[in-house]
């Protein structure tokens, strides 16, 4: 009889455990739209730079003169009636969620250059009125290096030559 009673108690205990388990569930539906994007960063430039690796870098050339020293990262070539500071600009374009395989890169001066000063990228003269195409087959994810020349006429006034170069990348 003791044995039977013990068995009954075990059976009740199992039933009780099963009966106490409770479950409940719910669903959180997550919706959104994945949008393609590209980003452009200035990776390098001549001069004393800051902000490289971002979309807004700056380069300080300090005081420049035909018969002075070339600024950091530049070379200086003296001509008969002008002189040229030469360096490079590194531009990288990355893509995300985009099937495009290459891009077009253009550049344009932010303001009219000082009289007697010419800005060139990849051999093309820049202006503030129209964009100049640097490449129409840019490769995503790698830094493209573009030659950068500033040509100063001997006749140019001694003054600041401050300017900005605006780059624009467009996926093809």
């Amino acid at each position: 009889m003791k044995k039977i009673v013990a068995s009954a108690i075990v059976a009740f205990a199992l039933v009780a455990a099963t009966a106490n388990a409770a479950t409940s569930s719910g669903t959180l539906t997550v919706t959104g739209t994945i949008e393609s994007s590209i980003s452009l960063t200035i990776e390098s430039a001549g001069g004393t730079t800051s902000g490289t690796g971002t979309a807004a870098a700056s380069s300080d050339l300090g005081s420049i003169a035909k018969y002075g020293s070339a600024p950091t990262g530049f070379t200086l070539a003296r001509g008969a009636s002008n002189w040229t500071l030469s360096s490079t600009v590194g531009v990288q374009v990355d893509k995300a969620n985009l099937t495009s395989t290459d891009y077009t890169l253009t550049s344009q001066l932010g303001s009219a250059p000082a009289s007697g000063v010419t800005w060139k990228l990849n051999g093309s003269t820049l202006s503030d009125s129209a964009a100049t195409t640097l490449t129409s087959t840019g490769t995503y994810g790698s830094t493209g290096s573009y030659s950068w020349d500033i040509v100063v006429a001997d006749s140019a006034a001694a003054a600041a030559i401050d300017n900005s170069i605006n780059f624009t990348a467009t996926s093809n």
Partner: protein
Amino acid sequence: MSSRTLLARAVLVACLAMPAASVGAAPAAPPPARAPELEDLTLSLAAVDAAVPGGPRGEAVLDVGTLSAGSAAHGRTPVHRRVVVRLDSPSGRVAVARLEAFLGSEPAGCTIRVDGVVLSTMPRLIDAVHRVGIAVVHEIEISIPASAPEGTFLNGIEWVAESD
């Protein structure tokens, strides 16, 4: 006869007698209306940052808007949102429960985390002792890789609460 034996017999008699009581009895009166049985455990969801309010109990919609991986060179850009999970026990029998979550479908390269736990289509433990009776905020993180195709993102996070 010991008292232990008496007890055993009494239980046995009672069990046998119960079915007999209904045999040959007068036409059975309709059983008395029983009070609806209270649920032991319920789960409700509400998306804290949702553009679309929650639906019926246990369902909610979280619209995360536009997602973009950003620059591949600068890593993925995770989106963070919060959701409130509330467990209740109308019957009062459950004090804590185990909360698990899983995805309704594979997220196609995207990573969805709840409280840092990466979700898949297999249930993952979110909280082993989730409190019952209070709302608990959980953080959802969605990471979009640069390789994910553009277009609509849709998935479902299934939540399951279970008491011991």
